[in-house]
């Protein structure tokens, strides 16, 4: 569970987030949408205490993030950040196991439980038999699934995901969201997902937080947030709204006029 109350973030004199409030219950999936530069990534980084807030409070499972150690935060909150590359030949298994850092001592080697968690997460992310592949030799989409597997391997019940579907093909985009949805529904996880695909979001999210220029433009159920007016105001584009005849979810179609 995450509670965010009136947080503001500044980079120098520039206001990046301005008194943002929301909360994510257990078993809930919140999607964060908004144009580039709206403050989405900054918001996500504030949630696990890696971006300092100028005011307001963030509570994770009832505890103030600012007062927790890095290790405490890491056992409660797992992050899927936007891609980065390493110049070292790290294998998929090593990468996924690195997510278990907060669960063990610095000197120690991984326990049975660590290894089990890593393999289970790799299976969930469709990464069977990838364990000894080298990260640098994977495709962008494969790497992104490994990054998700590392977050799942932590078994932290709060997931923060920054554009987890950006490099994925259609099948894996759906797989990624289904997986997150399943963790929420079956294991009571809370997830905050930044995404650009409004249809994916409408299909899988319980609530949507729409950000623009560091302010909350709209917040609520997909049908209440993804209105023609909101989308025009925030993204500057015209859309057509109807219902996906198969899933029944809201369908957003960009009118390229």
């Amino acid at each position, binding site marked *: 569970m995450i509670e965010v109350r009136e947080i503001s973030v500044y980079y120098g004199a520039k206001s990046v987030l301005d008194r943002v409030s929301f909360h994510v219950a257990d078993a809930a999936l919140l999607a964060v949408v908004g144009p580039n530069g709206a403050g989405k990534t900054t918001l996500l980084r504030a949630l*696990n205490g*890696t971006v300092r807030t100028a005011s307001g409070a963030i509570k994770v499972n009832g505890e103030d993030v600012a007062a927790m*150690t*890095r*290790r405490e*935060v*890491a*056992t409660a909150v*797992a*992050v899927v*950040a936007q891609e*980065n590359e*390493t*110049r*070292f*030949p*790290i*294998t998929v298994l*090593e*990468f996924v196991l*690195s*997510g278990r*850092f*907060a669960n*063990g001592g*610095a*000197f*120690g*080697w991984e326990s049975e439980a660590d290894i089990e968690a890593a393999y289970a997460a790799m299976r969930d992310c469709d990464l069977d038999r990838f364990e000894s592949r080298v990260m640098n030799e994977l495709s962008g989409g494969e790497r992104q699934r490994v990054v998700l597997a*590392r977050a799942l391997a*932590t078994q932290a019940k709060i997931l923060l995901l920054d554009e987890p579907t950006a490099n994925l093909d259609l099948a894996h985009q759906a797989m990624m969201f289904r997986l997150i949805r399943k963790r929420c529904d079956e294991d009571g996880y809370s997830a905050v997902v930044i995404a650009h695909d409004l249809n994916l979001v409408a299909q899988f999210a319980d609530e949507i937080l729409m950000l623009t220029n560091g302010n909350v433009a709209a917040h609520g159920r997909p049908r209440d947030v993804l209105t023609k007016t909101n989308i025009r105001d925030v993204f500057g584009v015209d859309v057509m709204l109807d219902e996906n005849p198969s899933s029944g979810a809201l369908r957003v179609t960009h009118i390229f006029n």
Partner: protein
Amino acid sequence: MVALLGVVLTVAAMLGAESVSFFEMTEQQRSILFDIRLPRILLGACVGASLAVAGAGLQSLLRNPLAEPYLLGVSNGAALGTMLAFVFVADSEFARPVMAFAGAGLATVAVYRMAQSRAGMNVERLVLSGVIVTTFLSSVIVMLTTLLDAAKLRSFTFWLLGDLSQATTNGVWISLIAVVIGTIVLTSQARALNLMMIGERDAVDFGVEVGRVRMLTFGAASLVVGAAVAASGSVGYVGLIVPHLIRLSVGSDNRLVVPLSAIAGAIFVVFADTIARTAIAPRELPVGAITALIGAPLFIYLLRKG
């Protein structure tokens, strides 16, 4: 690998301008072996281990396989510290490593600060910062050499290139203690360094207290490099070559890379020094010339590959 180190140490002890058999030794040979050759070989092993673990640690911390104490200017910082002790503090055997440690630490922090920018730290910026600090410190060292007389100057020039011929028993002890402490500290941080290697933000996200790991790694690297340089000058490229070879054979996990680099570094420098002692016997080459001869091409290869 430990067995290989034993073999290399033994063979190195037998080889030299005067070859020694362990079974029939004259009094003079005994003296050569125990008073001159053995301290030198053991010092070589400590210096090699020191530079290799420092390289392995700094590379992971800075996410850069090209980071190396010599190239980053850490060795030159230690050299300047040693030299200041040599020139200004009467010739105390303990003042030198302490000053070298301080010099190495300051140089490390200076390079780190220069390499950082708002956009993070890229490879080129780090290497360039290292070059700048190295050349700056070199010029200070050269200015200080004008204070030395001719005889001292020659031995000093040799030392600056990396030279094990001045080995003493005390020097061996100091280096040994430093390298044992340094290797234990770096190995204790190996799991955190594995995450640092992936990315500093990843490390923070997954529970690493980055500031603490950085301080311990810089501290341990400065300690071992300080002790090594005070005893033997700037032996270059060991910290580049050895961890690279270890990663090729066992992968990137620092829990293996750091301790194995210590052993392999010891083997490498003893091996290089045996060449330095015997190649043009009875004259000698500085060991640093041999390691640079091997290391510089590898550096270029890694830079192009990266």
